[in-house]
């Protein structure tokens, strides 16, 4: 491992300008630098996100009137399927860990890279391959898959659309996720700087640790499940087909054994980001560090045991339903622990309202609504009424998009100066965040009402009585999208024309704020020594360049 002053010469310039073995585009495509890989993920993920967002806009235009507005029913089925597949597998799952985890985890731990840099690059290639396979499925075989992102059997076995290829795309993406998880677990165990005990780790690292375990343990299940669909379609082996002695309910079990913990893969890293942003802008140590850290593990653990709540109306026994309902309610406890600790951190803090904190406060508001409506569905009786209605769509978007999506935007604004060494226009950022939050709530809260009134999800058509609410929801969607486009435009402008950012524009206390913006190739000239917790504002808890410090002290003595 390189250490000491040997690293100094590679750290003379930032990682963008460091000239290694390869030049131009190859210096990106063959890089093993965790920061470049993080940026490559960011570029890919933003493109996929914007594409899936446009599919969402098309759906909202279609929903403006009953019957056909702009597309045929089969097109609508394919569009909601691909909106889901792209958003889930290509955006929400990888976004925070793959972009910000890759970029900041090693820096926050005081390391020069992740534990397996080549494997890290390999996971990006797997991600791209999975994405391209999924895209390819749109234009080949029987056309775009039309099953919804859940690929439920028996429809996914019988559909004439190109389900096999899109499922295979998700299968490959799963490997990317596993590899990233494995890399992070090893990095956290092996690469922490001297003095960084487990309870001195930043909470973002804790969240990534819990997430990585879920990725490693749960993703193989979806891998084999999706692969079984391909085998069922190709060879009719009969694992899920009742006509051949299979059980369709088994598919739902296997699908949700992954896909429920997957929602924690999506939200836990976002919660980690919240725990970074709040102490920075409250200028105060986080309240309840250990409780927040351990609640991440508790969420990961309990989140594992609740998948059956997706299947309350699928034909499980009453006993199973009661057990899964009870377990579901338990998840609210560690989630509540986090929310109360965040709010308590703000209490009597010296709060500085900046865009990242605005997004975080929007998150707490939106996520609380999302979480509480989850309990409505976790209760057996109400779930019967609400299953497969817009209420579910509203809830899901509140927790996932309002939760993880909002924090993805918060993280972008929080770490943008560090990642790119540039600043963005604060006023435009505030306007875009406001438009986003207003539009978001108009868009998705209306879905709760629509669902409660009986509007089924995934329907192309609807009764005229729902039109008013659908139009209102669509207007909210258009406002929200305007906010998002403005936000990305502002960030892009900052990237091109923005002023140079300082090393620590927000007064952050974790290690990434102790190095230059953008960081040098090997992050640190010398591995720092950690002497205290990550969010201490009133004293130094890191010794940067410890060897130089020792030399200086020795010189002073002589």
């Amino acid at each position, binding site marked *: 491992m390189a250490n000491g002053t040997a690293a100094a010469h590679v750290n003379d310039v930032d990682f963008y300008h460091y000239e290694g073995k390869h030049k131009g585009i190859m210096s990106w495509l063959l890089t093993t630098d965790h920061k470049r890989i993080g940026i490559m993920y960011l570029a890919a993920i933003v493109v996929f996100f914007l594409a899936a967002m446009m599919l969402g806009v098309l759906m909202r235009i279609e929903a403006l009137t009953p019957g056909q507005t702009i597309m045929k029913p089969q097109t609508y089925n394919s569009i909601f399927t691909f909106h889901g597949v792209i958003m889930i597998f290509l955006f929400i799952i990888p976004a925070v860990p793959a972009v910000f985890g890759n970029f900041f985890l090693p820096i926050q731990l005081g390391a020069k890279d992740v534990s397996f840099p080549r494997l890290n690059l390999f996971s990006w290639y797997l991600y791209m391959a999975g994405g391209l396979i999924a895209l390819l499925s749109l234009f080949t075989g029987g056309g775009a898959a039309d099953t919804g992102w859940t690929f439920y059997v028996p429809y996914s076995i019988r559909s004439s659309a190109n389900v096999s290829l899109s499922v295979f795309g998700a299968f490959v993406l799963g490997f990317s996720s596993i590899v990233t998880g494995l890399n992070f677990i090893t990095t956290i*165990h092996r690469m922490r700087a001297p003095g960084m005990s487990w309870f001195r780790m930043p909470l973002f690292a804790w969240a990534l640790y819990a997430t990585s*375990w879920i990725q490693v*343990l749960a993703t193989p*299940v979806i891998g084999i499940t999706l692969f079984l669909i391909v085998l069922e379609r190709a060879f009719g082996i009969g694992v899920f087909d009742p006509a051949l002695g299979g059980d369709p309910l*088994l598919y739902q*079990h*296997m699908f949700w*054994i992954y896909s429920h913990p997957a929602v924690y893969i999506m939200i836990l890293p976002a919660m980690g980001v919240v725990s970074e942003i709040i102490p920075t802008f409250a200028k105060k140590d986080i309240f309840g560090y250990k409780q927040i850290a351990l609640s991440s593990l508790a969420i990961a653990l309990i989140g*594992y*045991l609740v*998948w*059956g709540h997706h299947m309350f109306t699928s034909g*499980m*026994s*009453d*006993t*199973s339903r009661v*057990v*899964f309902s009870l377990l579901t309610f338990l998840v609210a406890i560690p989630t509540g622990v986090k929310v109360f600790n965040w709010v308590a951190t703000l209490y009597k803090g010296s709060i500085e309202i900046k865009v990242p904190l605005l997004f975080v406060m929007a998150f707490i508001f939106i996520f609380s609504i999302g979480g509480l409506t989850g309990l409505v569905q976790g209760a057996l009786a109400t779930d019967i009424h609400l299953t497969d209605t817009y209420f579910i769509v509203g809830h899901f978007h509140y927790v996932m998009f309002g939760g993880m999506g909002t924090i993805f935007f918060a993280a972008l604004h929080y770490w943008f100066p560090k990642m790119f060494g540039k600043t963005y226009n604060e006023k435009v950022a505030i306007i875009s965040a406001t438009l986003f939050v207003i539009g978001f709530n108009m868009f998705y809260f209306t879905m709760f009402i629509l669902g409660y009134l009986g509007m089924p999800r995934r329907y192309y058509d609807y009764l005229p009585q729902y039109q008013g609410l659908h139009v209102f929801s669509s207007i909210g969607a258009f406002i929200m999208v305007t906010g998002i486009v403005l936000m990305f435009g502002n960030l892009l402008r900052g990237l091109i024309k923005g002023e140079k950012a300082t090393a620590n524009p927000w007064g952050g206390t974790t290690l990434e704020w102790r190095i230059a913006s953008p960081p040098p190739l090997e992050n640190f000239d010398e591995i720092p020594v950690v002497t205290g917790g990550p969010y201490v504002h009133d004293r130094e808890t890191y010794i940067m360049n410890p060897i130089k410090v020792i030399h200086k002290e020795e010189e002073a003595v002589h």
Partner: protein
Amino acid sequence: MSNNTSSETHHMSYGTYIMVWLGLVALTAITVSVAGLNFGSITLTVALLIATAKTFLVMNYFMHVKFEHTVFKIFIAVCIITFIIMITLTFFDLSFR
């Protein structure tokens, strides 16, 4: 890294390997013979328990987990417990349907 030398520090005799192998053969024989008995609803449980015992032997002796650092044992335990939970919560439903 110098603290990860567990693979160099242990030696097992061929005798132990052969004993473990004989144990595996014996357990396989038991699996085959009990398959002929009618245990009713616990048939699957019995088969899985024997398979678990075999897995335990293979992991500990052939895969040298017995000699590994505690952290790896914990990792493996987490995976096994997760797997048991998945199987239990998925299939206990069958008894109540």
